[in-house]
């Protein structure tokens, strides 16, 4: 029982942090793709979608190379005393990267559904582009953004491949998926089943909420 609470609590907490981390860039990229034409737009669109099609383990390995002590980013972080790989921060990174495409797709659909007439009229009333974004586009796209956040959160809850590569399976930073895999590997089917029920329950609620918000998964 203590493992169920510990692993579930940790997973939900990490997925929540990952969702908060991916929200600002996810909203910005979703808006950019919905509203702006710019050089490299299709490349950005493709890069953002990549984690959906590349095997999660491969994404995890790329992250490991990038964020490890000898990696581009990891070296810089290491020089200021911040360790990422095989810590809870690695779990957040893996979850955020894997959930990001779902958030962006849904946020983009949310922004595309906003009638440009509202934004135009707001501008004629003297609102700067930033004010138009904050007071018109963002609130009117909120359902899409919220649905995207819920989908991203759900994806984060179920994340396995990238997480196992970059965060491992260490006590204290073990997510639901990793814990289920470990129990299955050790033949502890009953313990795995308890965690599976928890994962299914969380996933059910999250997808149900996303559907209620009106954005197709």
């Amino acid at each position: 029982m203590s493992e169920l609470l510990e692993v579930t609590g940790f997973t939900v907490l990490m997925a929540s942090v990952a969702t908060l981390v991916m929200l600002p860039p996810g909203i910005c990229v979703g808006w950019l793709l919905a509203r702006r034409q710019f050089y490299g737009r299709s490349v950005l669109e493709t890069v953002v979608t990549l984690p959906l099609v590349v095997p999660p383990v491969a994404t995890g390995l790329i992250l490991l190379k990038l964020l490890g002590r000898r990696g581009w980013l990891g070296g810089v972080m290491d020089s200021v005393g911040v360790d990422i790989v095989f810590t809870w921060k690695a779990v957040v990174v893996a979850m955020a990267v894997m959930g990001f495409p779902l958030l962006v797709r849904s946020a983009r659909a949310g922004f595309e559904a906003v009638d440009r007439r509202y934004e135009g009229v707001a501008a004629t009333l003297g609102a700067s582009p930033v004010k138009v974004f904050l007071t018109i586009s963002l609130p009117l796209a909120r359902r899409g953004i919220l649905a995207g956040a819920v989908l991203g959160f759900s994806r984060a809850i179920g994340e396995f491949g990238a997480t196992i590569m970059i965060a491992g399976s260490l006590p204290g930073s073990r997510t639901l998926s990793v814990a289920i895999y470990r129990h299955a590997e050790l033949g502890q089917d009953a313990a795995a089943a308890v965690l599976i029920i928890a994962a299914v329950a969380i996933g059910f609620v999250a997808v149900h909420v996303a559907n209620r918000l009106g954005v197709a998964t």
Partner: protein
Amino acid sequence: MVSKHSLLTLAIQLRQGGFSLDVSVETEAQAVAIVGPSGSGKTTMLDAVAGLRRPDAGLIQVGQEILFNSHSGTNLPSHERRIGYVPQDLALFPHLTVQQNVLYGVSNAATEEHGRPVLQILEIQELLSRTIDSLSGGERQRVALARALMVRPRILLLDEPLAALDIALRDRILPYLERVREELKTPMIYVSHVPDEIRQIADWVIRLDAGQVVGSSVPAEAFGAETGNLTSPTRRRER
């Protein structure tokens, strides 16, 4: 050469897909009506004045203020033009209350003070706490008009503001527009298909067809004894 008495000078060349708008208008009239069949470029013209579409070339000047001049490279962004725009679909912000809509463009107490007569003329006070969803058609028109007027616009752009209303409601709203014209003295461009409406509001009529000005005159000359709608009842959104 632009006359120094002109209230409005438009020389707009704008190409979009297969459609081309090429108009030249200079008038001292305070209320100008634009008439023409659907697709003739009326809304495109208003959008260009509002800064929502950039002309390929030309000049847009209201009073002494140049909003766009392709020769000098001037192109004031929409939010610096001080235009009161009431589009055909009104575009009231659905997530805001009436009060929030009306005060959306009001940035300081002085402007809010200026807006009090607007609220009185359009009888908006009792609607302020309502949501947009709860308003009737006529109330929506008045709120959209109030929102546009609250920013002390240098010109008011009205795109078929009464088109969605039945005749009885239209007759109730028209006096509000007349009061706006008489008491606030705000110059306006008024797009409409209804001669009776134009006679009441406008003092100059410009006819557009296929993106070109094909005539201009005072309303009496433009319509004579004509009544009813100038186009078929089938409506579609302008380009």
